[in-house]
């Protein structure tokens, strides 16, 4: 019986991957049509997209560097979704996480490198949690819809950091509005020679595994999922939903903040006024595509990173305007969410057929 079950679930998994893959292919075909509209040969453009993102050592490095904050954003969104907390404010939490790392990285000095880095990352996690807590507080105290408050907090976060960077945090030796660079002891070391890939990739992988283990392999994670699946039943089982929503919220905000911190310590090193990272918004799309599972989200975050880096390469080589990247990501999200319908139908059929 159990071997039969596992063969069925393997077949379902294979079908899910196949259908989702098909949806991505359809999305790329539609994206190609947009490229053709610009009078550019889509095949040439696609070749530059993939060779730019994966064809060279440098390109792979760029892709993996962008993967880091994207992957953490997907984890952040997924954990919050598990407890039905709509955290659309990841962009803002990433920005605040960057700010936390920046403050400690620039203004705390004289520490040995590992300790300085850990202190910076702690600050980024705390800042991310605090920023999400604003929305959390407003929901629990006043019942304000967190989806809307987190959207608004995104705009406020980005303007707030720009104000700081243009005033108190401005680098006095710079002509443009930007902060100072973080101290050398706060920089995350590069781990792939000749590329921008930094130690943050290892952190992201470890965090991804911990999240997977916690949510799917521990009693606490089981309670978390139970609340998301059916909060009434969970209450009967003696689980306190409010407590678990708060736990989910804290993890979500912390992960987003960490993503911002890793990106700042490993890649940006400073904040330039007017920076818009966009990892938070892309991360939500990638989380949906990865169906909220860490492994699926690792793939989709990687795909979104490839589209980002490849989009830059397409612009430089054949002049495809960069915003195509967002159009393509939008199409991917829509194609994948529609494909979920076919997966659901097909799964029903396969399970019934097996009985």
């Amino acid at each position, binding site marked *: 019986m159990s071997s039969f079950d596992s063969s069925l679930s393997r077949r379902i998994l294979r079908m899910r991957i196949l259908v989702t893959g098909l949806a991505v292919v359809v999305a790329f075909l539609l994206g190609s049509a*947009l490229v053709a*509209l*610009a009078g550019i040969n889509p095949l040439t453009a696609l070749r530059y997209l993939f060779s730019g993102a994966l064809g060279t050592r440098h390109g792979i490095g760029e892709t993996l560097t962008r993967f880091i904050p994207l992957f953490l954003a997907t984890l952040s969104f997924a954990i919050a979704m598990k407890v039905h907390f*709509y955290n*659309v404010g990841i962009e803002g939490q990433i920005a605040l996480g960057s700010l936390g790392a920046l403050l400690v990285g620039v203004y705390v000095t004289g520490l040995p490198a590992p300790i300085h880095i850990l202190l910076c990352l702690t600050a980024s996690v705390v800042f991310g949690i605090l920023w999400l807590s604003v929305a959390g507080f*407003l929901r629990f105290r*006043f*019942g*304000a*819809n967190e*989806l*809307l*408050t987190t*959207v*608004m*907090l995104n*705009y*406020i976060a980005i*303007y*707030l950091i*720009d*104000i700081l960077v*243009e*005033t108190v945090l401005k680098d006095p030796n710079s002509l443009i509005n930007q902060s100072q660079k973080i101290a050398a002891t706060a920089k995350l070391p590069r781990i792939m020679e000749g590329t921008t890939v930094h130690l943050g990739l290892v952190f992201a992988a470890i965090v991804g595994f911990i999240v997977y283990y916690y949510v799917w392999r521990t009693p606490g994670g089981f309670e978390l999922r139970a609340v998301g699946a059916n909060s009434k039943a969970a209450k009967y089982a003696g689980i306190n939903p409010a407590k678990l929503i708060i736990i989910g919220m804290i993890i979500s905000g912390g992960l987003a903040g960490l993503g911002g911190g890793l990106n700042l310590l490993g890649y940006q090193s400073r904040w330039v006024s007017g920076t818009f990272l966009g990892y938070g*918004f*892309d991360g*939500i*799309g990638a989380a*949906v595509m990865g169906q909220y599972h860490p492994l699926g989200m690792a793939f989709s975050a990687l795909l979104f990173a490839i589209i980002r880096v490849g989009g830059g390469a397409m612009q430089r080589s054949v002049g495809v*305007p*960069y*915003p*195509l*990247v*967002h*159009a*393509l*990501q*939008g*199409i991917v*999200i*829509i194609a994948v*969410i*529609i494909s*979920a*319908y076919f997966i*659901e139908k097909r799964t029903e059929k396969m399970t019934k057929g097996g009985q």
Partner: protein
Amino acid sequence: MDSQFMIIIGILLGSTIRYTVPILYAALGGLITEKAGVLNFALEGLMLAGAFFAYYGNLVTGSILVGVLCALAAGALTGLILSISILKYKASQLVMGIGINIFYLGLTGYFFRIIGSSGAETMVDDLLGSIHIPLLEDIPLIGVLFEQNILVYLLVVLVIFTARFFNKTTIGLNLKAVGENPYAAAAVGVDVIKNRTLAIVVGSMLAALGGGVMTLTMARVFLENMVNGRGWIAFTAIILGRYSSKGVLIGCLVFGAATALSDIVQIVGIDIPYQAALMVPYIITIVALVLSVGGGNAPAALGARYDRE
């Protein structure tokens, strides 16, 4: 009252209207969709689409009317895509909204760069003329209210009409019924899918028109990501307005006035970072959300998935 004060009040009223109109179009569109039980998270993207295609239609033909029609067409097409994916393929309303928003952020920026236009030479050259209502326009202080363009007057008519529509017309009552209890409505022969599709498409057209107003009568040019959260503010205004068109009107006016005020603060030279002024509408939105909680009045089946038996 000195004349300087009068002038400032005049400017304030005028820009309150200018800031309110695009949001109010989108919010009314969202309201119609939500009355039928479907959350329209795509207002932001729809406004961007309307802004770009209105601009483009006008750029190519030199006709404002064509611009307006292009915005409406973009809204209708997007509304159809939303309807099919949400109603037929049971896609999550939130995820579809996010997808559409990211898509149009990219598509409008992409097309804008492809047509290779930037700056003054591509400005909408014939601003939609304002229609002066005789006598009323001469009233001191509020005279500015009566020298608006036709899209503003149309909006006033729409607000009044929407209120009647949901309470007095069969189509309006049917829409409300499928928003309150789709299964009961279906049982008495109201086609849930058809009514919801109608609401989504019409609502999306209005939201796109709101974006079109921005390029045709305000900015006179398209800028990437120019909607910048207004769609979400419109979404919030629906909640603040407790799902009535009068309430939505007031909600949008509050945002319009707040934005206009933050403009004035900068113009009269109070020394604050310009980003602080830009933050104001978003902060107001959060404050308003907190203050409005408790009333609710949302359609009972709002956001729920509908499976035909």
